[in-house]
């Protein structure tokens, strides 16, 4: 089983998708010769040619809009938004066009488009390069939203997303790009839209996704030393939500904390808390807590470690929940 970084696993997943189906195309800024600013598309233009791995003019709305047109012609475009903070110029094409062709055509027109977005903070970047805009898309009917947290998921989820006939926003936790893992490229992957219990536990459920999965697993292990048996659920799919897995876990543990980098207000934690308080009304022994980014724009990098949820903030919330 090869060991690879998340970045490499995504690259390998894209490569395999390009090999598997001649209709798969990649497009985006600097994805060709340069291989993308994170090198996720490295060597793909060299190997599949500039007609399939397309350097786009510097215009996100144009990238999305032409991807829609290519999809209407039967192609399966996978577009890269260079950084999370640059997806907004394409917002209309995503939330008002891409998400709705299936609906607007009464189910006749499929939109097999994947929008890859490196997201999240913790990399010491300047502004607009550390954002977590996932809730904007998860609130949008017609889109599916997924995010990987490790190389195995990077490799498989990318291929599954490309094979899906729905438009999918694919969030890549950029600060985890260089973390390594073994990737079994033969084993049958788990379904794309299913959450995964990363670590089982009986006392409390940490519900998270993307870059915060590792943080939560670290917290769970640390909490274990203090005698708390924590379960960690990696949502993987933010829309649709696999509430069955989440509810099952929380019904068992009776306590839940949602962890994400995005702002608290109307972040994913809001939806999960709203559902849990309804679906687990009698099981919950404490309120669902949220450990998230604060409701401020992403701050300068010298204070990002105070802004981002980390091991300690998660443990602090664990203590509060357990003490409730």
């Amino acid at each position, binding site marked *: 089983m090869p060991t690879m970084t998340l970045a490499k696993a995504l690259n390998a997943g894209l490569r395999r998708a390009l090999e598997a189906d001649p209709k798969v*195309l990649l497009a985006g800024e600097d994805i060709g010769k340069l291989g993308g600013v994170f090198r996720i598309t490295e060597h793909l233009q060299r190997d599949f040619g500039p*007609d399939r791995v397309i350097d*786009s*003019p510097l*215009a996100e*709305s*144009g990238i*999305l*809009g*032409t*991807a*829609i*047109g*290519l*999809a*209407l*012609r*039967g*192609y399966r475009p996978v577009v890269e938004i260079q950084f999370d903070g640059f997806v907004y*110029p394409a917002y*209309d*094409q995503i939330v*008002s*066009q891409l998400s709705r*062709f*299936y*609906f*607007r*055509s*009464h*189910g*006749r*027109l*499929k939109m097999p488009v994947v929008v890859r977005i490196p997201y999240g903070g913790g990399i010491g970047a300047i502004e607009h390069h550390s954002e977590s805009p996932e809730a904007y898309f998860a609130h949008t*009917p*017609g*889109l*599916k939203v997924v995010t990987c947290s490790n190389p195995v998921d990077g490799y498989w989820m990318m291929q599954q997303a490309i094979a*899906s*006939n*729905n438009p999918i926003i694919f969030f890549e936790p950029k600060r985890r790009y260089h973390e390594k893992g073994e990737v079994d490229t033969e084993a049958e992957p788990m379904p794309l*839209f299913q959450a995964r219990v990363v670590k089982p536990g009986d006392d409390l459920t940490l519900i998270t996704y993307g870059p915060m999965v590792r943080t939560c697993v670290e917290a769970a292990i640390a909490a274990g030393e203090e005698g708390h048996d924590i379960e960690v659920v990696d949502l993987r*799919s933010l*829309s*649709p*939500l*696999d*509430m*069955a897995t989440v509810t099952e876990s929380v019904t068992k543990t009776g306590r839940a904390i949602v962890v994400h980098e995005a702002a608290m207000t109307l972040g994913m934690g809001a939806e999960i808390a709203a559902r849990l308080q309804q679906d687990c009304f009698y099981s919950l022994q404490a309120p669902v807590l949220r450990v998230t980014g604060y409701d401020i724009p992403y701050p300068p990098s010298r204070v990002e470690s105070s802004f981002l949820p980390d091991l300690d903030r998660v443990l602090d919330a664990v203590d509060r929940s357990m003490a409730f």
Partner: protein
Amino acid sequence: MSEPAVDDFVQLLTPDGERVQHPEFDFAGSDDEIAGYLREMVLARRFDSEATALQRKGELGLWPPALGQEAAQVGSVNATRLPDHVFPSYREHAVALHLGVDPVEMLGTFRGTAMVPWDTAAMGLHLYSFVIGTQTLHATGYAMGLQRDGLVGNPEPADNGAVIVYFGDGATSQGDVNEAFIFAASYTAPVVFFCQNNQYAISEPIALQSKIPLYRRASGFGFPGVRVDGNDVLAVQAVTASAMQRARRGEGPTLVEAYTYRMGAHTTSDDPTKYRSRDETDAWRARDPISRVQTYLLSAGAIDQAWLDALDAESEELAVRVREGCLALREPKLEEFFEHTVIDPGEVLLEQRDEYLEYEAGFADEGEPVPSETHERVQEAL
């Protein structure tokens, strides 16, 4: 006021019905073909007026009339053939009729029984598009697909295809339209940008969007632009055909500005007397796109009164069919739309649908109205 000088644009048939020469463009078709255009224009206009009437009767929520733009639409769409593809805005009713969209079905969108009802693959006509300008990018992407499918620049002209996309003068101000120009130029995409400059974006005159003729926008992006008399079906056909051929040959995009006039309201919700003068409208009425063709064909002896009478009868039949058909349009159910939101919805959406169905089922029995005295008490509280 906006009546252009004739030498400003390509014209092949004067408002008086006289054919004139142009150094670059020529309409090569027969008088029979021209008669076909006339028929399409007349039927489109009749359809349009019927739809307007249906809206007035409350049978449609809204209707955007194409009145006055029939030549621009009929001329341009007659420059397309398979495997060309057509991306409309929301006012291209004559284009839709030409491509075989059922006029009754088309009304579904405006009656509120459907989103966009026709089968785009079968018609070669893509969805009506209501967010201004967005479809120009879709068209450009589609054209990039044609390139990749090897349908551009082949030695045999019949093997080649191109895309035409319709948009208005107002749309030219949207970022998306300009980005479409950039992508199309950059990739030499086979797409014709067909702008119906009908002088207004709702109430806003063209001068607010551009102080110079719109067709000139193209040159700054590195591809040709041409302005054609949009009320001259022959010139529109000739200019569009030339642009489509250029695209099919693999030489890239063209911007065609069809200089025309929206003779009616923006939509049935609009009141154009607020922003334009009767004089202006009258001046443009003298440039009607239909009458000049009729004049020409009559004087050329290609049609006669009997032909016109038959067309009249056909128009009336169409109107009756549309009127009756509209009222008979199938009423949809909300659950259909749950089905068409995503493929394989997750449990959250399925649960919502089930709850909705259960609720609707339970509700069938009940249904007491709000007690009438409630209204006053509501008013008080608010």
